[in-house]
């Protein structure tokens, strides 16, 4: 029968006190374990944000499996097709033919005509030197009324250049076509999860007369194309920044990069940068800062000294969040992070100076497969991986900050922490659902 493996495994190599954590990689690159938390989005989920688009993946069966079933779990098979690469294609080098004829075959069989096709090529195309520009040129000649864009499922490139996730978020906006700029329109880009509409970010801009659009607001392809008229793109997600830079270069839309933060001074600095760039007057945000102070106090009263663990999937700024919570007396006891982003360098230094023994755990290190996943006292986890590794039913079930930005966003996160502290969740069931918030079942 099945037996628990591992026995006397210690945490060496899987955990490091933050004082000893190197930037940006605190752990050795070795074999990788993948835990059961599945709430983060993948390139299939993200691609489906483009309305009226059809996704076509061309790769080996083993690589198709995960993406096909992602689409099936979203009940979106009708917007999804595949081309299977086999050994003979690699040996015969007919990759261009397979791609061009495969896409043609699929489009001719589809019962509807998509406005756009997101064509995902794979590591094999990269290594075999497939002439992708030729393929796209042929397809555009054959299907004049369909827009094609290049997307990638080539994880072998994840350690060199832009990651597949960055490429995907850039690809989301690659279909936008140049049009006249409307100085009253602003996009928020780069997010899988839509920004909370209650955010003061949106309120300030709308009060100043701007129309704010995120891709999630676009219910058809024409509405999506209207995003090309925005004068500015605001991005607060580090992995979305490359997309903003590409749009600035290609469409002349100015990028305002205002990274997410849980530090009031940084939030204010971001808004000052924004208002200056837009020529707006900086509004009085004292009500928002006061509300945050009150929310922190209230959450602390409710949660008290309960140990809190945080993982990197819950927010793009886990160190900033840990720092903010520790500064306000919360008992943060562990972080689950495999690498640190550039935006977190200052927070890392602060934590190293003030809480040097705070443990940082890898989530992919092989020992994490067998180390005990339980805690002896009630623990509040922020994020699915933190919940999984601590075995707690008390967790905040969000990914990518949940769309909560700025002062109001932090207040809402604190409210979610209180709720999670007070109400148990079915961790096993919830964390295994793919792409939290994308409609997967």
């Amino acid at each position, binding site marked *: *029968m*099945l*037996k*628990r*493996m*591992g026995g006397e*495994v210690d945490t060496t*190599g899987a955990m490091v006190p933050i004082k000893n954590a190197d930037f940006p990689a605190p752990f050795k*690159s*070795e*074999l*990788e*374990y*993948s835990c*059961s938390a*599945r709430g983060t989005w993948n390139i299939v989920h993200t691609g489906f944000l483009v309305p009226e688009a059809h996704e076509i993946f061309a*790769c*080996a*069966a*083993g*690589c*198709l*499996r*995960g993406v*096909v*079933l992602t689409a*099936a*779990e979203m009940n979106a*098979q*009708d917007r999804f*097709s*595949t*081309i*299977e*690469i*086999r*050994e003979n294609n*690699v040996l015969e080098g007919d990759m261009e033919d*397979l791609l061009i004829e*495969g896409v043609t*075959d699929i489009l001719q*069989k*589809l019962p509807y005509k998509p406005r756009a096709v997101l064509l995902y090529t*794979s*590591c*094999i195309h990269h*290594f075999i030197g497939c002439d992708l520009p030729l393929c796209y040129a042929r397809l555009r000649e054959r299907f004049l009324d369909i827009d094609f864009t290049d997307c990638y499922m080539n*994880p*072998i*490139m*994840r*350690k*060199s250049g832009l990651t597949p996730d960055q490429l995907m978020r850039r690809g989301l906006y690659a279909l936008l076509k140049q049009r006249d700029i409307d100085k009253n329109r602003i996009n928020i880009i780069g997010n899988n999860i839509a920004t909370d509409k209650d955010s003061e970010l949106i309120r300030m801009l709308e009060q100043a007369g701007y129309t704010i659009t995120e891709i999630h607001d676009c219910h058809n392809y024409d509405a999506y194309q209207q995003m090309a008229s925005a004068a500015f793109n605001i991005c607060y997600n580090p992995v979305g920044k490359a997309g903003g830079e590409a749009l600035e270069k290609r469409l002349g839309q100015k990028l305002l990069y205002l990274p997410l933060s849980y530090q009031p001074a940084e939030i204010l600095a971001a808004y000052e940068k924004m208002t200056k760039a837009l020529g707006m007057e900086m509004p009085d945000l004292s009500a928002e800062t006061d509300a945050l102070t009150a929310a922190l106090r209230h959450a602390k009263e409710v949660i008290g000294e309960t140990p809190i663990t945080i993982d990197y999937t819950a927010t793009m700024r886990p160190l900033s969040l840990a720092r903010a919570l520790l500064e306000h007396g919360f008992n943060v006891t562990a972080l689950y992070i495999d690498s640190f982003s550039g935006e977190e360098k200052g927070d890392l230094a602060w934590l190293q100076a003030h809480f040097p023994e705070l443990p940082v755990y890898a989530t992919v290190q*092989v*020992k994490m*497969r*067998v180390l005990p996943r339980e805690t002896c006292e009630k623990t509040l986890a922020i994020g699915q991986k933190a919940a999984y590794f601590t075995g707690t039913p008390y967790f905040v079930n969000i990914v990518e900050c949940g769309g909560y930005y700025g002062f109001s966003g932090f207040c809402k996160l604190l409210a979610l922490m209180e709720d999670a502290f007070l109400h148990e969740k079915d961790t*096993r069931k919830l964390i*295994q659902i*793919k792409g939290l918030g994308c409609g997967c079942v």
Partner: protein
Amino acid sequence: MRQTARIISTYTADVSGVNSALFELGGMTVMHDASGCNSTYNTHDEPRWYDHDSLVFLSGISEMEAIMGDDEKLISDIVSAAEQLKPRFIAVAGTPIPMMIGTDFKAVASVVEKRTGIPAFGFATNGMHTYVEGASMALAGIADRFVTEKMLKTQDISVNLLGVTPLDFSVNGSAAHLRTVLEKYGIMTVSNWAMGDDLDTLMQASSAHVNLVVSDAGMGAAKVLRERFGIPYVIGRPYGNWTATLVNSIRKAAETGEDQVPQVAREWASAVIIGEGISAVSLANALTSETGRAFRAIAATETERVVLGASDRIARDEDELLPLLNGAEIVIADPLYQPICPKDAHFIRLPHEGFSGRIFRDEIPDMTEDISYITRQLA
């Protein structure tokens, strides 16, 4: 144009088949892949992942390691993990890029074994075949390496069940039920390859009289055990009353030492079953013999011709499947096949973990003893 799927799913790949077959045996399996195979496997292909800490990992090969042919990184990472976790054996399985750069998995395994002293296997999977091939390769490897001693046969007629993974048997009790159903017919089970029995139990396999190959994943091990110990095999999956026919074949194989592939005479029929080869053919035999109506099977995974009856076919993609479904009045298949089936056909949902993963897991029936799940829908 072949190799396209407008809408249907794809079967679990060979590399996941290796993982699935070895999952309960106490080893450590490493997928030599950049990323993706691990989450695909443990999300869609492995229902035991959450509860059981089997050691299945990913190498995380990078672009530069692939270009430079840096096998040393892979080897040293495996050795390091093995030293930390002390598995019973180590298996390394490949994916598309290692195939393209010509990774020599047997050589990698040999070096790993030399450095760790732990038995190691290299499986040249490439993500371009179905789980059947990978699982078959893995179980054959176990048979070859660990079933080395010729043991006394059990007193009563006995079998090893070869090719049992959740990809074909899910986690609904079917795997354990195989043993109890055969017991009712007086057939003992020495070992189940590989759900419910550990490596030590599998090492007793030579004491069985016959190998019962219940899915194509068991074919490789069956051939190894036949060659090494002369154990004959019977091909077929127990389904309802069809099990009695299988049991007769088991007795005949034990008596004669000859392999058996029992079949019911089935003509070309408008009732079609799509699925893993041995499962689909066995179900076609079972339904034909119980209902008197002919059924034919479409094997959508790799299978040996000997498994198929005269009216059965192999089809791997939509272009191959569609002509075989023309005129079908009844189709029994995974729900993800329904979009390409004739609209007026009576579609009977038979979810298959190897095709639709976890999506319809709760619907997967255990038909080992009773196929009324299907027959009542035919009425």
